[in-house]
């Protein structure tokens, strides 16, 4: 069944109807319409999947998707246009440009924590780039998955953008089929399987994976504001966000203050009993609930710790003085547990982070600009937000993606378009000017060789610093001389006038 859907999508792509920009714009408008018209249904599905609150849905998923669609609609003509580039002497009279082209049929595998954003954001880019796309939402977010399957064909071209639902076996079946690009969001372990399957067909992949995103709080920063921002980022969607601050690093002297500020903020956000707050989520399923609960075993939290298995509820929980080698610190938590690990100073924090796998996101709370600069320069991560969390995700002009174990490739805004396009190098020459070509043909001699070498030199203008300085100095001198000449002429003209004037004057007298 999956094979048929993919085959239909392939044939639809080969028909060429995704090529015209108008078609792509029409599909994007239709997607926009779907989001606007079906917001209530989407919210309901998310509530059933993950107890997402009525406001979290637009906040965390729909606003982002709408913004991406708006941007793509506004900029598509620009993005799809050829880009002319600098030429050398040989190609001086030719057309040299880069033409973005669609890849073909893209497979998008979504995740369950933001089922709409993580399938539709890549889809926006796939449509904009002129591809067909097979969308495979996560089966763990069951209601959203079924709703997407019902809705998408009602608004978008049925053949070009099929939705395939199902579990692990359906995904494996899909991965046996050859695609032109596979876009996967999920865990690093499954990411490896996806890449290995793609290798059989030499299919390029984009892997948006996860990891433990560290959050460093400097002792001299505004701890209250830092904790408000961290608390928001950590406990939104009940901690089930790939870029949530996974753990905190700070010096022991501020640990107590951090705990108190978080406790205070939690009260403000969710009230005394977060279980009753309409704004606090739940864990996606029993398996993850058990996994997260087991991470806490043997530790006494300083905030929260309560749970209710029947509701898959885990209270916002903070643990302090967590040892670096504990289970909590071995795997991505992906839940509402916030461990605090003590470090002796900023250098210790930097070493701690560098000893571990490259994270998807890195957070630094610090007021000292120099220290921030050093922290960024001495570490690496997919992205960084300083003095806040997760916000780098919200700006579509910033490329979003991981590095190392946290992923490869990036998207958002134009970056999705670029990621799902082929940048084709085009050189359009004429058969004229054949005499210029003579120098590169055999039989070869020194003169010909020298001419050929000249023609292929990359820069027509030497862009070195020395030449630039000479150019500037020469221009200044030239201008100076020109001005001097003007002045001389003016004076001469003036003198002349004056001479005539006085002559006239004397004559008069």
């Amino acid at each position: 069944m999956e094979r048929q859907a993919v085959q239909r999508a392939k044939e639809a792509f080969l028909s060429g109807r995704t090529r015209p920009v108008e078609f792509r714009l029409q599909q994007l408008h239709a997607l926009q319409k779907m989001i606007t018209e079906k917001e209530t249904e989407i919210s309901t599905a998310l509530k059933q999947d993950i107890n997402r609150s009525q406001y979290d849905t637009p906040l965390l998923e729909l606003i982002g998707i709408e913004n991406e669609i708006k941007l793509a609609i506004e900029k598509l003509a620009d993005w799809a246009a050829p880009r002319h580039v600098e030429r050398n002497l040989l190609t001086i009279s030719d057309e040299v440009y880069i033409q973005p082209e669609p890849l073909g049929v893209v497979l998008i595998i979504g995740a369950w924590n933001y089922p709409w954003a993580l399938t539709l954001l890549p889809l926006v880019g796939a449509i904009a780039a002129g591809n067909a796309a097979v969308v495979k939402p996560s089966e763990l977010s069951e209601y959203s998955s079924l709703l997407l399957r019902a809705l998408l064909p009602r608004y978008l071209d049925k053949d070009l953008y099929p939705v395939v639902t199902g579990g692990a076996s359906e995904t494996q079946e899909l991965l046996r089929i050859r695609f032109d690009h596979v876009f996967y969001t999920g865990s690093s372990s499954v990411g490896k399987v996806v890449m290995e399957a793609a290798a059989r067909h030499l299919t390029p992949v984009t892997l948006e994976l996860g990891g433990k995103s560290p959050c460093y709080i400097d002792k001299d920063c505004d701890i209250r504001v830092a904790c408000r921002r961290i608390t928001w980022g950590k406990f939104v969607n009940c901690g089930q966000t790939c870029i949530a601050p996974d753990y905190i690093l700070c010096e022991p002297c501020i640990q107590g203050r951090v705990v108190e500020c978080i406790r205070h903020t939690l009260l403000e956000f969710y009230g005394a009993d977060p279980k009753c707050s309409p704004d606090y989520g739940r864990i996606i399923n029993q398996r993850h609930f058990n996994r997260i609960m087991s991470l806490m075993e043997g530790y006494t939290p300083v905030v929260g710790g309560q749970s209710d298995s029947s509701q898959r509820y885990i209270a916002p929980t903070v643990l302090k003085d967590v040892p670096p080698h504990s289970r909590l610190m071995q795997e991505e938590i992906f839940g509402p547990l916030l461990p605090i690990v003590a470090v002796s100073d900023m250098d210790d924090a930097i070493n701690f982070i560098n000893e571990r796998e490259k994270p998807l996101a890195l957070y630094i709370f610090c007021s000292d600009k120099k220290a921030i600069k050093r922290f960024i320069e001495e570490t690496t991560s997919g992205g960084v937000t300083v003095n806040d969390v997760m916000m780098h995700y919200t700006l579509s002009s910033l490329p979003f993606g991981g590095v190392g174990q946290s992923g490869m490739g990036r998207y958002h805004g134009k970056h999705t378009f670029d990621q799902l396009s082929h940048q084709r190098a085009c050189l359009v020459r004429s058969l004229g000017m054949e005499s210029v070509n003579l120098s590169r043909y055999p039989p070869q001699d020194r003169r010909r060789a020298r001419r050929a070498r000249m023609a292929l030199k990359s820069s027509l203008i030497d862009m070195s610093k020395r030449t630039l300085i000479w150019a500037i100095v020469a221009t200044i001198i030239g201008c100076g001389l020109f001005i001097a000449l003007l002045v001389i002429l003016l004076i001469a003209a003036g003198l002349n006038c004056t001479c005539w004037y006085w002559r006239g004057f004397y004559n008069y007298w």
Partner: protein
Amino acid sequence: MDSHRQAVDRLRSAFHSGVTLPEKFRRTQLTNLMSMIKENEEQILTALHKDLGKPKFEAILSEIDIVLNELHYAISNLTSWMQPEYVSKNLATKLDDCSVRREPFGVVLIIGAWNYPLQLLTLPMVGAIAAGNCVVIKPSEVSAATDSLIAELIPKYLSQDCYAVVRGGAEETKALLQIRFDHIFYTGSQSVARSIMQAASVHLTPVTLELGGKCPGLIYGRINITAAARRLVWAKFFNAGQSCVAPDYLLCTAATRDALLPALSQALEDFYGKEPQKSPDMSRIVSLRHWSRLIELLGKTSGKVVVGGERDQEDKYIAPTVVVDVAEDDVLMKEEIFGPILPIITVESVEKGIDFVNRKEKPLALYVFSDESSVVKTVLEKTSSGGFCSNDGIVHMTLPTLPFGGVGASGWGSYHGRWGFETFSHRRACMLRGWALERLNGLRYPPYSEDKLSWLRWTTSPKSCTLM
């Protein structure tokens, strides 16, 4: 192999020490690489001649000059490439510092090929070094003389802590791929590329694959047959056809073929004389194994050899050969030829030619020869390929401003010029926020309300910038 692991560990420690990060270091290494090539030009030319019978002129153009051009370009532009890129912001982030930093991946592996043994190793190296990585360099063992020359020269000119040459055959490469790298850059065949990508998937290592395929040349419409023939002959028989972007086969009408054949013969005679084997400008096949493979193709084809066909096993020489009446399922059309054999397939219209091309895998390069711009345009729009060049061959890859790479079966990723720098860099999104405007942040905190939502929609909308 223990020695390989030790080399990689040494490079990893060097990378962690931060020595490759400063611009000065990268510039010095690139300048040293430039000196290495300039000061050893004679030795390089000799090694290339030993490996491939490469004529001095071809070697200078395709192995020395192209690399020096690339180095010059990188050295001139390094400062600007390394600068953070500031991006446009929305209302919510108006006061923030939002930029993209280019950071090196770490320790990267570059695996070269034997047809342009120096170029295909050093061109990616330029990008990798400029981006601040440490590099493990694995030249192809098939081009043995160049392999040992590179192993001898690199440690003399580049930092031995940061750049290591690793040698060996298939077994050693397999063992090397067990080690974890931060990026693997491979030039070569599709079958090997599959195993490289599979090995890379174990460590989630990103890869760049510069592969090959059959690059078609379409000749349709009104055409200056003499000029077209000369450019075709140059592009096809350069390096005895052993170029990943050489036009592999031609598609044209029967009439064009009949006009083309004498033009091709004339061009061949102009270039290589009546006996190409005696011309100093004609290359040889790299090894006996490849020579035998090509001779076998000539033996099994059901096409007719109309030009060339002469061969000399001891010299590993095959004359520039043209074969006509080749069918789509002929043995010559099964895999990339990579030799001086040019099949001509007659297809009566450009549309049928385009369909023919589209039935096959996406090639690394696609060529069309025509004086009619509508023909060129149609072919361009209805096909896909890594790169495209009309009325010439190969030269599109000499421009550092154009990305060089494949699509589909012909590869993944690109390099040359800035593209090489970007391939070996991680683009890290950085947002530096201030402590103020916490009230604005309050819009996103629970407890939620309808009001907060509308404000949020407004401040994060992409159009909201135009209000400021």
